[in-house]
């Protein structure tokens, strides 16, 4: 995932610096990243059917639509057309980023999903310092998730200026930006849980912590 994203942004920087000869750069397309586990591996917390649709259909659509929007962006010299593409690029590019981070945020129980980091871990210390305990952090995130009006995500992030942990909500597929580094993201779109949990989204928010990959969160925290 990181590779394809880096490639894309590097290519876009290249594009901006080679305006006079726009034909020379070749941009790598965004692609669906590999899943590190089987579709059924997060059961019973997230069903295999949800995972398969979410990854092969929803995420794939964000990837395809992002590539289409970028192709249009690059093939027009009309600034008005470029500006009108911003919303599509943000939405589908954000959908690609968010889901790529999300799959890595999760792990089957046998691969460490749900396993809290020990007391020496820097992330554990930061969580205890700010929220008291993992349980209190999870409670605070679930409160934010429940408050989303419509589609969106809740993220545990690190403020790269202060080093502090924060919990932020993002609407629709708006990606985490600015000073914030995403550590753990929970998808609160209905497609993420509806086939299994229906309208009882609070049960999904409780269950998903059984498969959260805290080692990945710490890797991002220390990066």
């Amino acid at each position, binding site marked *: 995932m990181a590779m394809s994203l880096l490639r894309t942004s590097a290519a876009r920087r290249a594009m901006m610096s080679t305006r006079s000869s726009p034909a020379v750069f070749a941009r790598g397309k965004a692609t669906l990243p590999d899943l590190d586990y089987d579709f059924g591996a997060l059961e019973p917390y997230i069903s295999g059917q949800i995972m398969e649709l979410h990854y092969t*259909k929803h995420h794939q659509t964000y990837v395809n639509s992002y590539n289409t929007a970028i192709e249009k962006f690059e093939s027009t010299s009309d600034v008005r057309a470029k500006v009108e593409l911003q919303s599509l690029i943000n939405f589908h590019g954000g959908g690609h980023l968010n889901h790529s981070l999300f799959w890595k945020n999760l792990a089957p129980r046998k691969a460490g999903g749900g396993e809290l980091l020990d007391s020496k871990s820097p992330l554990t210390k930061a969580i205890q310092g700010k929220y008291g305990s993992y349980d209190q952090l999870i409670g605070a995130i679930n409160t934010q998730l429940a408050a989303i*009006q419509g*589609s969106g995500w809740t993220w545990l992030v690190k403020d790269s200026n202060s080093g502090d942990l924060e919990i932020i909500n993002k609407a629709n*597929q708006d990606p985490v930006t600015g000073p914030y580094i995403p550590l753990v993201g929970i998808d609160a779109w*209905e497609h993420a849980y509806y*086939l299994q949990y*229906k*309208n009882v989204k609070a049960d999904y928010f409780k269950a998903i912590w059984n498969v959260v990959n805290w080692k990945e969160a710490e890797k991002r925290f220390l990066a």
Partner: protein
Amino acid sequence: MTSAADAYSLPPLPYAYDALEPVISAQIMTLHHQKHHQTYVTNLNAALAAHRTASATNDVPAIISLQQKIKFNGGGHINHSLFWRNLAPPGQAETDLVTAAPELKDAIVSRWGSVDAFLEKFKLALLGIQGSGWGWLVMKDAVDSTNNGKRLEIVSTKDQDPPFIDGQVPLFGVDMWEHAYYLQYLNNKAGYVNEIWKVINWKVAGERYVGGIEKEITFKL
């Protein structure tokens, strides 16, 4: 705090839960009405009760912090109440635009050239919604005098924002939240967007076009 007289309640569906099959399944209709719509009503009443308390003590910060909850849950109640009534079982006379709403049909043709052209525009608007929201056919006051001073527009609203911006009158709405179709259509929202036309109640839409919504539905307690 809340007594029956000063609380909103879930309006009954004007048809059975399975009446819209095969276009919308009974399972979707049951959850959508009994759980989702009920939750908006419950949360709206709770927010209004809290608002009365805050008003009584002139607690301005509390009043301000309740506004978004009232908008979201009040909008959810309004949108779903309009939606149930602008649907009808497939095959019923109400679902035939030409015979059920001739005036509205003429206005659609004069605005978009043909009914098919209108449908294509509306479907594109529905599929273009990013996240949760609704698509609406609305009537606005026209600047010129075409169609008796009425102008039709296709608009989309996000989340549960209600469709009453700038005095526009909603004729019918299509719910594009995933809970409205996912159990049946999964990620194929284009399938839902193609099928929904079989259950649009054009008779109700036509009545709203002629006379507004006040005669049909009220959101007053």
